């Protein structure tokens, strides 16, 4: 799975937690999940659960704390996927 494919799946997960469609009219890889996409911070734990299910991996709390942007999520998933292969 390449990064573009990962990103597509991440965005479809994030869309479940955005209250307004408008936030998706203007976004890019470095859009901040809480500030730009206006996702409630409590929802990060739900997003992580969805990622674990979708990508079949485990995300520890420290990794969760480092996530700010869409890019951060995609990189984290790509790294974990690579580790798994090793």
């Amino acid at each position, binding site marked *: 799975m390449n990064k573009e494919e990962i990103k597509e799946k991440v965005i479809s997960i994030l869309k479940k*937690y955005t*209250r307004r469609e408008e936030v998706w009219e203007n976004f890019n890889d470095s859009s901040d999940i809480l500030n730009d996409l206006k996702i409630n911070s*409590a929802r*990060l734990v*739900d997003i992580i*659960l969805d990622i674990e299910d979708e990508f079949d991996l485990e995300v520890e709390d420290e990794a969760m704390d480092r996530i700010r942007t869409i890019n951060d999520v995609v990189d984290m998933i790509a790294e974990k996927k690579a580790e798994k292969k090793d």
Partner: protein
Amino acid sequence: MKYKKRVVITGMGVIAPEAESLSAYDEILRSGRSLIRHVDELEEFGFEAQNGAIADPGIDPENELLRLFEIDLTSDFIKLAVKAAYNAWQDAGLPIPDPDSEEVDYDTGVMIGGVISGIEQLVSKVVPLLEKKRPRRLGSMIVQNTMPSGASAYISSIFALGNQAMSLNSACSTGVDSVNWGYHSVASGWAKRMVVGASDAYNPYSWAGFEGMRVLNRSSNHAPEKASRPMSASAKGFVPGSGAGVLILEDLEVARARGARIYAEILGGFSNCGALRGQGSMTFPNREGVIRALKTTFELCEIKAEEIDYINGHLSGTMADPFEVQNWYDAMQLKKGQKFPYINSTKSILGHSLGAAGALEIVATILQLKNGYVHASLNTEDLHPDIEKRIGREPVPLKRVDFPGMRIAAKANFGFGDVNSAIVLRKYEE
């Protein structure tokens, strides 16, 4: 009461089975149409009492404001409350706030009660995951959907309400107590406006406790509309229901200043507890406590018992009904020649929606007061002989009675824990 401020009702919203608007609710009450149905799921779960009245918690996809909040909501208790609050807010002609604005209305508060409230979330969500030893999988929304104050929290968020946002539970007295709490808050000046009411949703897990107690009517599965029989000689237990009722209470001066339509005035209310003494137990009232609660209510509201035109009883369809009527009779102490007022049970139509019942019944009382009728108390063809002996047949309407001159209505609920709550409403007079 000793307060200086007068408190009026300027908006109402209900979510009942087959009625999500006041006009639909009014039509059901007027026509005396039972909303009780056979619930197949209860049969599947092994209930012997299989009837119920189920209100729809689904949020209208066209409702742009509520849709913003829907993604967080898993609790039907909160969804019902939020829908009823939205209807009440709109009915009161209040402006829908901009969800992006930082402005907070610190003069308006919210008090939404519930008996089972969100705790069914523990059964439907927490239990299955904990049995698999995976609490982490619960995610973030479980606590706010479980906590009884969740409905008030969401309503304050939706309408930017910055006064108190709390919940209250006094078993089947919850609805009346929540409205009374709002009354006292506005009358005392704590808030200028209160969004008050109660909600309780259908859930077989929470209804099962009443099945276990053998307090539900198990003998009418094939005739659901005959199952809820308050005041009847053949009453065999209550029929569980669900829904939400929400009212907007305002300081009369505030309501007048904005030119609000006024449904009725709250003259006051009072609650007490029989302390499980005398005949009182967890499930049956101490007579002395009930009579005291009713008498104190009349005194605080500065009305004479003979001024009461109509009583909306608690009357749930159990063996307690004749005792309730006797208690009203004894508390009122009418003199010879004074007629006992009309009395009916809205539960004969809606079933008993636990905490929500009182709120839905207060809305029903106000609609009857404003529109001048007393709805039929269904299934009273065989009025209990003790009731007939005490007050006669005439006060219990088998069919709707038109009563345009109705002026003062009393409403009470009595609940587990030997709690008694009453409120008095008067047609609005300048």
